[in-house]
């Protein structure tokens, strides 16, 4: 929870409250500050950097796989991580890891986005498909079991697929694009389900440290709205 600092704004002016000389272009969802575009980029990126540093998410020289679905979270994550890696010399080896569930009309489009990311950000891409790993596509599974519990299957398969992909790439960590909204949903969901065990674990920024591949969520404190605004502004 952020405490709003109550910056005094001059009546009638709409100047950015951070740099105070450019005109304010947007209202930041997290703090409701009115700031200009450049300052927004800066605070957004610097906050991620702070999260990485404060929580000691990465060590220099580590190989990190970014779970890339082609969606907004993972695309922004790929961009920001590669940018911060360069700017602050994290010394990380970044990779894009994408999973093809075999859902026609859904995954094919997002895979195109990921391939574009590979080119744009210069990050090597690995795609693993359910068909190759398990011999089943999601479409085939749904044909078997219907639409009620298919999400569970997909989630379980995807988690293992990410682990396998990470092992194939020989990475040290997997970074996913889970944002603050996702974590909030997970907390509420676990309360509603009465899943005490998960409830205790779900807010950790690094999970699975005692397992094969630890996973981290650099966007844990980032609002989904800001992730949406970031590429568009």
């Amino acid at each position, binding site marked *: 929870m952020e405490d709003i600092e*109550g910056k005094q704004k001059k009546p009638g002016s709409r100047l950015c409250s951070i740099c105070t000389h450019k005109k304010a272009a947007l209202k930041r969802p997290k703090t409701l500050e009115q700031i200009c575009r450049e300052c927004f980029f800066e605070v957004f990126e610097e906050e991620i950097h702070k999260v990485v540093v404060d929580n000691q998410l990465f060590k220099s020289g580590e190989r990190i796989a970014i779970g890339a679905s082609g969606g907004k979270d993972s695309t922004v994550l790929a961009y920001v991580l590669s940018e911060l890696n360069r700017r602050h010399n994290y010394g990380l080896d970044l990779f894009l890891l994408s999973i093809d569930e075999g859902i026609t009309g859904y995954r094919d489009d997002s895979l195109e986005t990921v391939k574009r990311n590979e080119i744009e950000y210069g990050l090597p891409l690995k795609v693993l498909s359910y068909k190759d790993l398990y011999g089943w596509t999601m479409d085939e599974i749904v044909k078997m079991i219907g639409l009620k519990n298919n999400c569970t299957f997909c989630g379980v398969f995807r988690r293992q697929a990410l682990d396998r992909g990470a092992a194939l790439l020989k990475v040290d960590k997997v970074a996913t694009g889970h944002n603050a909204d996702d974590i909030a949903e997970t907390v*509420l969901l676990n*309360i509603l389900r*009465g899943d005490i065990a998960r409830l205790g674990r779900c807010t950790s920024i690094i999970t699975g440290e005692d397992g094969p591949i630890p996973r981290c969520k650099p966007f844990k404190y980032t609002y989904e709205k800001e992730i949406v605004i970031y590429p568009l502004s």
Partner: protein
Amino acid sequence: MACGTTGTCGSGCYKDSNDGIEDSTITITTTNTMSTPSSTTLLSQHMKLCYKCKEEEVINSTGGLCGICFRNSLFAKFKQSITTHDLISPTDNVLIAFSGGPSSRVVLEFVHEIQQKAQKNSDASRDKLYPVFGVGVAFIDESVVTSIASHDLDNAIQDLRLIVSSLAPPTKELHIVPIQSIFSTDLKDGRNKLNELLDTVSDATGKEDLLCHLRMQCLQKIAFENKYNKLVLGSCTSRIACHVLSAAVKGQGYSLPADIQYIDARWETPVVLPLRDCLAQELNMLCRLNCLKTLDVLDAPRSGINDLVSKFLTTLQEENPARERTIVRTAEKLIPFHFNRLKEMKDPDETLPRRHRRKANLQPYESVPSEFLCSICCSPVKKLDVECLSNKLEGCETNFTIFGASCCPSCQFQILPKDLSSREQFYSLLPRPMTTRASDFISGDQTWLREQIKDCLLSDSEDGI
């Protein structure tokens, strides 16, 4: 039974089935109205019998029970809470907080029943030594903040007086107190102060929550002034489930366990929740079945987060009736605070017969360290936040800054105004108990504070006993 019949209710008060009552998935349906006599010779094929007594017919949405067994099951839950956790003892003088809703109405009814039984036992006993606990009823008149028409309010209050007077003997004193009385004895002045205070809070949820805390202040004041030693609330499982989700959303996770236990002794007059294991739907049903009058006109619409959560949970509960209990069960896994137990009685009263002596508590109360409580909502504040508080106190100027620092992060975010001018106004309008609590802890109790933070202080010169 409250409506005076021994068996099935007459057709007057029980409305036809499916009258807005949600059908839970586990009910056995019956198509008959209540006027059909339930003798075995007239048993139609559709009629199902109560699984407990196997004599009366089942009522919709009670889980397969007849009216009497349904009431008994709720009363049994109530009684179990009281005996297991020692919520009411014979020497107590309890104050029931009555809001007019179904839960308060049921708690009033049930407390009256156990009081009546205790009185009968006492009258019948040879030596007449058994004390019977006293019961009072408090109603907080919030008409200055809600938009209720004055004649509706007058009717409601009249109904209230009737209800309380009908629940005698033993007689119960009724306290009708307007909420603005905690601001000043002059009600007009108090009303202006209250409205001004609420206006300084911009957040809708914050306003509602602040009003809730003021309500508790008012109840505590009534209890203290009239020498009650326990405050009974009718909070049920559903309300607690709403609170669990709202608290999670408002960032009050640390203090959440304090609010959901049977006993809450951080207040001057400890608060007990005997109906904690009953669902709102059950209590609503009971009021209908037993013709217990509720003051529905007083229902103020909720707003903001509380309203959203309440509506959300209603939807969830329709899909899965076990949801509210699951939520409360999850929250029960959190460790309660030390004040969620009652103090140990110093010397068991020798004049009481053996079975009335209270069981000794596990741990003497005095040795447990006290928690730092927020000045507005009284919720315990985490040690880390207390350390921030000590930093802020170094060379702080205004009263408001001191006060602001003594509030929990949630109140700071939600209730305290953001801009400087509103802040000072807010502080000046707060009722005395809230502001003195802050200054007591801070100026008067420096030693306690120092004790809490001594690990962080670098130059820890003299002692800090």
